[in-house]
């Protein structure tokens, strides 16, 4: 059980930023996933918290102990931070048996009052302060406990090379759990497993989090894994924190186009639109034109004043830029996120258009495209991928492709005509100018 706090943490090599001014609060007993595309800085972040990497600047605290502070010159080495670390490729020592691998860490414990309780857990503040290390018998009891948790009892005398990938994974978990760390760091621990085993281990990790009560920090590039496991997701791109929220919040209220695109499978549909806000309408609705000729009205779930919103965003951006002026120039520049509009034929060339407040991007999750016989939009089935439980459809509307999910056992023949609507009030509206989400709402298509 531990809180972790990162303040203004930066890691850079020259002008190349791996992590840029990251603020992060990880609560006690949380299961936080660091999510992002490869090379975005998530592993570096994890390694900095564990002490394997030294930040360029910033401050890291675990509980109330300062682990790193660039201004005070504090840097506690990784072996003194008392954390657990699960490596992506397990890092099992090939020259030791499974038993020796697990026992190695236990034999290194050297703290006054350490003992093993009846449950087989390592306890550190016992009465007998003269007792510094664990006895052989105590080590055995701990190994009995952890090997029962991950079910590796029969393999204790084997060498790592004699185990399958899944078994090695379990051994690595057991080795990490054995000294009862208060924080557990995991660096893409499931990415080397096959799909079925991954699913199984995922649920075991969730149970483990519950039973150990430790704080888990988990790195992954798999948004599905992050969604299903985490209590909170920290989404990073190009060294910058994009959003730090609960999984469902990230899913339904993404801060910007990148987050909306990265989370969710199948991916969100983006539709470019232009329009103006009805000045007279009390619901502050926006008249939109999209998909080469369709017209509709976007009704925000709560009133929004576009002008005020833009001013506010511009102010935030100016503040951010002002803050960054003093920093070393970033060579891996932050470019506007290039969202993908699915089309049947890619346009020959895209002319760059001067964007205004009247340019929008509509984001529609596949499940909000409802197929019905009296839908207002007509399309043609372009491809259909049934899994049994649901069918992922790509539907052609003009030159555009929309992804929809239809639940239930149905058969869609490629080339048939279908009709659909955009349903619900969770259609997302982004500003095309700055890529930020303005609000969610309802999109009513004019007949």
């Amino acid at each position, binding site marked *: 059980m531990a809180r972790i706090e990162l303040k203004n943490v930066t890691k850079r090599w020259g002008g190349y930023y791996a992590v840029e001014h990251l603020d992060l609060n990880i609560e006690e007993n949380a299961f936080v996933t660091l999510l992002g595309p490869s090379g975005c800085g998530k592993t570096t972040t994890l*390694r900095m918290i*564990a002490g*394997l*990497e030294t930040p360029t600047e910033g401050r890291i605290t675990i509980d109330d102990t300062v682990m790193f502070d660039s201004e005070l010159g504090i840097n506690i*080495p*990784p*072996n*003194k931070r*008392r*954390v*657990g*670390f699960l*490596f*992506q*490729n397990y*890092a099992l*020592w*090939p*020259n*030791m048996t499974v038993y020796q691998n697990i026992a*190695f*860490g236990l034999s*290194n*414990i*050297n703290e006054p009052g350490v003992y093993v309780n009846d449950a087989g857990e390592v306890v550190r503040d016992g009465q007998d302060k003269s007792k510094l290390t664990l006895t052989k018998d105590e080590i055995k009891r701990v190994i009995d406990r952890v090997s029962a948790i991950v079910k590796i009892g029969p393999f204790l005398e084997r*060498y*790592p*090379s*004699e185990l399958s990938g899944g078994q090695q994974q379990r051994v690595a978990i057991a*080795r990490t759990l054995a*000294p009862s760390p208060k924080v557990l760091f995991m660096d893409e621990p499931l990415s080397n497993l096959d799909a079925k085993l991954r699913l199984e281990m995922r649920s075991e990790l969730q149970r483990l989090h519950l039973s150990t009560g430790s704080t888990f920090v988990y790195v992954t590039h798999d948004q599905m894994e992050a969604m299903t496991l985490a209590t909170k997701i920290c989404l990073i791109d190009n060294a910058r924190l994009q959003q730090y929220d609960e999984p469902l919040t990230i899913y339904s209220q993404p801060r910007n186009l990148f987050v909306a695109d990265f989370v969710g499978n199948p991916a969100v549909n983006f539709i470019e639109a232009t329009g103006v806000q009805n000045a007279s309408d009390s619901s502050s609705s926006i008249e939109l034109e999209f998909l080469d000729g369709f017209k509709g009205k976007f009704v925000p779930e709560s009133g929004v004043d576009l002008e005020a919103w833009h001013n506010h965003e511009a102010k935030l951006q100016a503040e951010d830029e002002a803050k960054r002026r003093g920093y070393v120039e970033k060579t891996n520049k932050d470019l506007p996120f290039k969202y993908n509009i699915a089309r049947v034929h890619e346009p020959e060339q895209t002319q760059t258009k001067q964007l205004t407040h009247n340019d929008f991007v509509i984001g529609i999750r596949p499940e909000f495209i409802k197929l019905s016989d009296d839908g207002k939009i007509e399309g043609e089935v372009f491809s259909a991928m049934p899994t049994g439980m649901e069918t992922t459809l790509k539907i052609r509307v003009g030159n555009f492709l929309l992804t929809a999910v239809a639940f239930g056992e149905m058969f869609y023949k490629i080339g048939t005509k279908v009709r659909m609507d955009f349903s619900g009030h969770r259609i997302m509206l982004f500003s095309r100018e700055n890529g930020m989400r303005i609000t969610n709402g309802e999109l009513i298509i004019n007949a």
Partner: protein
Amino acid sequence: MSNNTSRPGSLSKRLNRVKTYLSKPQNAILLALGIMLTITTVFPMITILRDTVLIHPGSKDAVGTALESSFDFGSEKLTSYNWTNLFTGTITTRVGRTRVTRSVADVYLWTPLLNSVLISIFACFGSILYGGIFAYLVTRTNLKCKKYLSSIFIFPYIMPQWTLAVVWQNLFNSNVVTGGSNGLLANMFGITMPQWWCEGIFPVSVVLAIHYAPFAYILIGGIFRNMDANLEEAATILNSPRWKTFLRVTLPLIKPAILSTILLVFSSAMGSYPIPHYLKLNTLSTQYVAMKGDRIGQASILAVIMMLFGFIILIINQRTTSGRKNFTTVTGKSGQTSVVNLRAWKYILSVILILTTLATGILPIVLFAIETFLPNPGDYSFLTNASSLTSKWWLTSENITESGMYGNKGILYNQQIWNAFAGTLFVAICCALVAGTIGTLVGYCVSKNRRSKWAAYVNNMAFLPYLMPSLAVGVAFFVVGSNMGLYDTFLLLILAGTVKYIPFASRSALNSMMQLSGELEEAAIILDIPWWKRMTQIIIPIQKTSIISGYLLPFMTCLRELTLFMLLCGQGRIITTMLDYFDEMGLYAFSSGINLILIVSILIFNYFVNKLTGASLDSGIGGGKK
């Protein structure tokens, strides 16, 4: 396959099976190579074994047996005299005025054997310690000048073996202790080093260790470079102290590299002739040379004993590398290798290492160069009087007997020397071509038949000569050569060189071929592309660098080889025997000049091949990829 409906007989079935087996080019080549290597490797060994029971006219065995043979074998006389006399005979020597009777074994066998084993062990130990620490510093710390250091560190291996031994002499010898002319230290500062420092086990071991340390550096450094840093980090996270992480995690991981270093260094050190010869230590190889005059048969027994060590090392190696703990350390996904911060030590250590490598890498060249301008060997009077330097050793173009030239022309005009140099080049090129080609084929075929026992046998046969001390291989070919009337011919030199150097090529080829996915070739097979085209258009272009290394290494080694060749030809045939001859004659300026020419040409070759193809010596030695 055929429309034959009747059941084929067992003979035709077997015939078909053979046909299918041989229809794959790699199998046919493997079969041919296996037979050929068996002959070239085993035949000399048998010959040498047989030589120990032969009676040699004019030798001790002829006197001892009074030409009476114990039994008849064709026309040649066979005897067990050599064995019995060596192990049980006695010999009377004069020590001062008294005559002392000692056993033959003590004088001719046990003392040199003990010395040989000791220097081999010390050489292994020293080279692993020096090369290993160097490898650690270069790969895992923030040491300065890494690039310079790592390229100069392998100089001692590139240079001829005796280079450092000669340098040692030139530095430390003094008239008071060792006799002869004063070395640099005695000359300039009046320092005389003690006897044990100048001659015997200590300097031999040190020189061997420095000479073979590049092996250890390349092999151990290769693992350090590719080692998964997570393995150590995992230990650190679990609060393991540094020394414990090193002992329990790092050391076991580099153990395979340490074992292969031992494998390579032990027998190389045992078979080394020039170093103990220059530094005056009685080892099996120097003893062999001393005995081959009047105790030929017994000398062959020494060679057999040296070979036995080769076998023992091979067996030990196979024992230790198989088994449950056998693992590959190079899984390396994590690119983030943590670099140890040496703080202020990085400058101190860099300076120390730069000085040491200068002493072992550059100093020899400078000393050899100076030597060729001295008026007389060891005459360092130019330090006070610059005009005493002379260019006569280089530029004398006429036949004069004065000024210590003994009728030899200056190096630049000396036809004999340049003939020998051309001879060396010829031998080196031929050896490189043959050994490189065969080695590459072995590597290719073995990698295609990974599980086959025959392939493993061929691989071992190709590798065995490496574990045979050079001198023993030389002896074997000497015996074979003299029986067949090939003594002092290029053919014999090329034959011996090829057999001895195939391992270089086969190792580097095998290592790189193993990393090549079979699918690359299978894709071509499906398209019905013939074998030679697959080789020339796919395999060879991909493996260009390592294949060139396979040719380069025999070439370089051949240029500077003395131990292997010295028994096989006269003094003027190749440059190294020429050098040895001048050295024996006391014409040190000539031998230094030849040394200089050799070293410089090797370095130039190495530089150009490296620049042109990217292949380098170090990637060939252990096959360790950079």
